[in-house]
């Protein structure tokens, strides 16, 4: 297919070669990719290393999952970085984990919706990298517009209209969006056309999956049900692989069906250092130090990630760094208390800001 992009946005984003934009909206190629797969219920278990090696290629549109620090497939993402994958387009709502991928050359382009640390402020590392041209924004979105694009893909809509984005500069900085008249209205009724969007690969971390890929999780889905349906390749990492009977007989059932899935990786703590619903609290030591050092300077930033990502082979080594089994038990209790499943009395959620010299005990 040949695509008709928003010309003003191309100009504002200084994009000359539009071919790098095509795959995100090429719904026919996504359909073809899905049709070509083996659709049978079969054993899809493999190691994280195998799954990333096989299903993530240089230049892919990689989609982050869930919500930055909550149930995001961070360990899958770290494995992508460790394997030295290059020049990915990063996408996600939010798209916050991309930022340290830029430093390693893993990410070269981004479909931006939000990169930052919420109440901890902006991401100076991302700002630096953007100014230095290490990463280029090739489309700018709001969470809601991107969510509609993902949902359109899931629901067999090549595109949809939205009342979001109107009057903003987002629509002048996104080659995929166009202001159009609502075809249903005789009166003037401008809408934003949003195409369905199709990442190449998404890794989704869940609480439980069976070996075919039927996947169950707790907490917010955010866009994961939609991106699993839309993405050309989908890797599930999960806290545990359960029996197909468990999926069938559990009241919650699966939220993502097996036919979306290419690989199933059993990976306890796969969302660490982030939060995993019903399983473990986020590693506050990690995040507070990260925000502080990454904001401070490029060197500090490199030092931090060389220790935590490059200096670990797998998530168990990460957990040892922040307290090992001690962390595991405390973190589990804290997560369950936060959610109202364990007794909260005696469990502390007190927030501490990073200061130099602090260690895990100070910010557990």
């Amino acid at each position, binding site marked *: 297919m040949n695509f008709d992009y928003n010309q003003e946005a191309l100009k504002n984003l200084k994009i000359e070669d539009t071919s790098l934009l095509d795959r995100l909206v090429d719904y026919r190629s996504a359909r073809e990719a899905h049709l070509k797969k083996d659709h049978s219920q079969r054993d899809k278990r493999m190691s994280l290393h195998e799954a990333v090696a096989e299903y993530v290629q240089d230049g892919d549109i990689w989609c982050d999952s869930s919500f930055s620090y909550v149930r995001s497939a961070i360990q899958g993402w770290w494995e992508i970085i460790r394997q030295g994958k290059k020049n990915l387009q990063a996408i996600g709502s939010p798209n916050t984990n991309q930022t340290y991928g830029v430093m390693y050359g893993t990410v070269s382009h981004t479909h931006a919706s939000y990169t930052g640390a919420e109440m901890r402020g902006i991401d100076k590392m991302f700002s630096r990298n953007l100014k230095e041209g290490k990463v280029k924004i090739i489309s700018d979105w709001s969470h809601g517009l991107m969510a509609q694009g993902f949902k359109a893909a899931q629901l067999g809509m090549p595109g949809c209209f939205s009342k979001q984005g109107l*009057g903003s500069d987002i629509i002048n900085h996104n080659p995929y969006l166009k202001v159009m008249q609502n075809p249903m209205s005789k009166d003037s009724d401008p809408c934003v056309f949003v195409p369905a969007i199709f990442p190449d690969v998404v890794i989704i971390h869940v609480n439980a999956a069976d070996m075919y890929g039927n996947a169950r999780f707790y907490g917010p889905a955010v866009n994961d049900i939609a991106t699993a349906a839309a993405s050309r390749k989908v890797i599930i990492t999960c806290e545990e692989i359960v029996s197909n009977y468990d999926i069938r007989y559990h009241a919650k059932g699966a939220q993502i069906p097996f036919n979306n899935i290419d690989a199933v990786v059993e990976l306890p703590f796969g969302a660490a250092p982030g939060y995993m*619903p019903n399983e473990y609290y986020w590693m506050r030591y990690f995040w507070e130090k990260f925000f502080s050092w990454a904001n401070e300077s490029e060197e500090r930033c490199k030092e931090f990630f060389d220790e935590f990502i490059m200096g670990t082979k797998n998530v168990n080594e990460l957990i040892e760094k922040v307290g090992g089994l001690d962390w595991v038990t405390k973190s589990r209790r804290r997560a369950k208390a936060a959610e109202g499943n364990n007794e909260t009395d005696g469990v502390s959620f007190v*927030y501490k800001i990073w200061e130099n010299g602090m260690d895990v005990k100070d910010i557990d």
Partner: protein
Amino acid sequence: MSNDKPMNPLEMIAYVLSRQIEDNEVIYIGTGLPMVAAILAKKTHAPHITFVYESGGQDPEQLEMPWSVGGPMTWRKSPIIMEMSYSFGQAAAGMVDKGFLGFAQIDMYGNANTHMIGSEFTNPKVRLTGSGGNNDVSSLVDKLIYVGLQDQNKFAKKVDFITSPGWLEGGESRKNAGLLNNGPVAVITSAGVYDFEPETHRMRIKTLHPGVSPELAQLASGFELVRPAGAIPVTETPSKEILQILRNEVDPSGLFISLPS
């Protein structure tokens, strides 16, 4: 925290913001001060409000301040947790009354920027967070309220990027752009409370905090503030009882309402 301390500016903002919330409303909440204000409102004059979060949580059991809008305190035993597209969809459908947003820059028509500082998108002075849900909240909720610190740079003659459309160029321009909702109704800052003049939709002083003169407010603005006819009222300050609730029940660790020492 001692209850005898005098009120600080953050506490004042939290209180004033809380008064913007009416009982029975469904409101979009982010982390930080809007959260503090909403919890204060629920504990005082607006017990029947419902909190909704862009990431999907709704009406969580209150326990602690969330550290992320995706975090467990936004969906602790929520009756329902929505997909993100559905969460914004309910605002489009008219189920969400109010939203609260911060800004890095805001202009006289309430157009707000959280994207970038600088004149060149591909090479900004500083890249900010981007929209996140801000554009969606500003486009969809019935009434929008901004909150932030005020100075000449933040109250900008022209914002470097419109993340969240306010009244655009004033007059009918917002409606003509096709936007569904009412648009911004108030801006709460460290200096005062602003609304928008009904015809031109220019930002107008509504009340000023104790000790802030119209001249001082104007000095802290990069554009001309509309002054209402007559005397400008002083913003109502929180009672001792409300300050106690704020300090002891809403943010006991003082994370959001203590000034950095």
